[in-house]
């Protein structure tokens, strides 16, 4: 089986999350590898959250905002 990364995406409610939502309503596809965690602003993402994601086995972390 080929390697499938698990990526956590912290997404800002107003832009990146809205864009992902829009992609959904527009029936656009994106790989299921990214697991979205909504935040009210990318500024909410503190280092501890990123480290926690890695600790829990994430292969990558995306902060979008």
């Amino acid at each position, binding site marked *: 089986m080929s390697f499938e990364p698990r990526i956590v995406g912290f997404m800002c409610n107003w832009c990146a999350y809205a864009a992902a939502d829009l992609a959904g309503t527009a029936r656009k596809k994106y790989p299921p590898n990214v697991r979205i965690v909504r935040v*009210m602003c990318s500024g909410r993402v503190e280092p501890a959250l990123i480290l926690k994601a890695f600790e829990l*086995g994430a292969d990558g972390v995306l902060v979008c905002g």
Partner: protein
Amino acid sequence: MASAGSHKNIELLTYSEVMEVSGYVGNFKVKIKKKPRYVDESKCTGCGTCQEKCPIKVDNEFDLGLGKRKAIYTPFPQAVPNVPVIDRDHCTYFLRGKCRACERFCETKAIDFEQKEQTLEVEVGCIILTTGFDSFDPTPMTQFGYGRYDNVITSLQFERMTNASGPTGGKIVLKDGTEPRSIAILHCIGSRDVNYHEYCSRVCCMHSLKFAHIIREKIPDAVIYDLYIDLRCFGKGYEEFYNRLQEEGVNFIRGRAGEVTDVAETPEERGKLIVVCEDTLISRQRRLPVDMVILSVALEPRADVAETAKLFSISRSRDGFFLEKHPKLDPVATTTEGVLIAGCCQGPKDIPDTVAQASAAAARAMAIITKGSVEIEPTTAFIDEKLCSGCRTCISLCPYNAISFNEDKKVSVINEAMCKGCGTCAAACPSGAITARHFTTEQIMSELEGVLI
């Protein structure tokens, strides 16, 4: 506008500009600059004598180069209020200290050269922005010869020309004063064009059809061409209007014009403007000799849209217009509570849609202010006073200026009405004193476990 001006609950501040906005929904403080018009509004009767007597004539901006005005003027006859303004840059008195003709002839002594700029401060509960649009300037599209050929005009110029109280008294005329025998109307100039504006300006199809109808009415035997990409007759009764125009003998050509030129290839083309286009329904190149070309130009965001958005703390969408809170569910609200938008500042739209939005915004504003209290989003942050060390890191980071410092207690305090719950303060607080409601560290950690394990 006139009835808004005379309504007892509406104070109209014309010739004024918002300079500063502070506060939040229910408690906005707005600083307004009231420019001096050098005419006392309380004395002026709007008789117009001053405008007759003023010896200075300059181009009237409102008529887009088609008509003249005086140095003391109202931009157009229906302007509200019906009180003229003195244009300092052209008034002989302001330039050279002499003349005062307007003052001499004014029966009510309304002229006041000493008037000074005033700053007002008002407190309001809600703000509605209806700052509208700008017309796209087609000069950069040199292929259409705007600015080079006298009789290539924009849709807005044509609109002024057909206005009964406009510069030509409603007559459609060429630069030399004669009546055109043939006119081409070119749709989508600057819109639906990736080089300028990708979006459709929405109203141009219908106002182009309106133009064709007005031309048919005023010059019954004129030859009229409408060159379009698609006809977007989207509103109630609009498709029927299009059908009617086909019956009125307007020539509809599906194809974008490539060029407007005065280089004649045949004797019939001599002295004419030739619109070169591809008629995609018959797959042929065509050359249409006409007397006048109307460019139906795009509606675009105003030149000062970025400053206005910043002033009122609202966002813009990719096309540059103001961004609504939600395109379907909240089309007249913005992400700043208490700031509402309506009309073309939100995107191109026609008058029925503008009026619908404006009514919606007015109703929304009334609903907010008549309640006396405002409901705020539950996603705000709060500070645990016992943990706050008073370092003020959060204050400098808050994008909404919602945090202040309590000097007595030496702790930071969040104003919940201004807080948008972004959580930047919670992430940055070195003492862990700030909690972002509904997005607490514990909640996000558990969510991570949920998505990863």
